[in-house]
């Protein structure tokens, strides 16, 4: 006589596809994951363009520099 738990296990086993051997990745993924968590995201192109634009504006209008230093 099978218990309800054993019936549940049997049903689950019959519903899932059989695996002859455990599926393992072809290589160790841990170092890649570790490297990915440690890498710093680089600044997007928009921020570089913005920094260039700000420097260009300051170069074009140098008289504003002391004013910006005062106000900001």
């Amino acid at each position, binding site marked *: 006589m099978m218990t309800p738990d054993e019936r549940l296990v049997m049903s689950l086993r019959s519903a899932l596809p059989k695996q002859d051997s455990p599926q393992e990745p072809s290589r160790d993924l841990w170092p890649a994951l570790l490297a990915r968590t440690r890498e710093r995201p680089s*600044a997007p192109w928009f921020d570089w363009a913005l920094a260039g*634009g*700000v420097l260009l*504006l300051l170069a074009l209008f140098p008289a*504003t520099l002391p004013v910006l230093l*005062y106000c*900001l």
Partner: protein
Amino acid sequence: MKTHPYLRAFLGGLFVPVLVMPVLLTVFLVARVGLHVAIPIEQALIFPMAVVPSLFGLWNMFWLSSHERTRLSIGLHGALLPLVLMPAGATTGFAFGVLKLAATEAVWFGAAHVPYAVIAPMYLAAIGGYYLVWKYVIGFLDRELGIA
């Protein structure tokens, strides 16, 4: 470090002005003492020394209290600060005689002539610069202090 997040936000906000202030003071002193430019240094330093650092700290506290509601990134939040600082600085400068308004230009410190047409690009530069400083410097500090 789970306690006093607003104190940490205030101190994180103070970081940039505290670094810039000695540079500003040096520039003013070199211009006044070394180059003999007639800058009213006492009046000129009131706003950047008394108001700007505190406002940075308070603005960072404001971001901490509001960003969950507004979903505004710290860069965009910081980019809004010149909209408060520049009118406040101009008003203070006008009140203390640092800023004089002429027909076509504003004269700062009796030496820097800024045509009115240049004010818009100056504003854009300030907003862009603030976006970057808040995103990369103060954002980094907030992450390190555990509040972002």
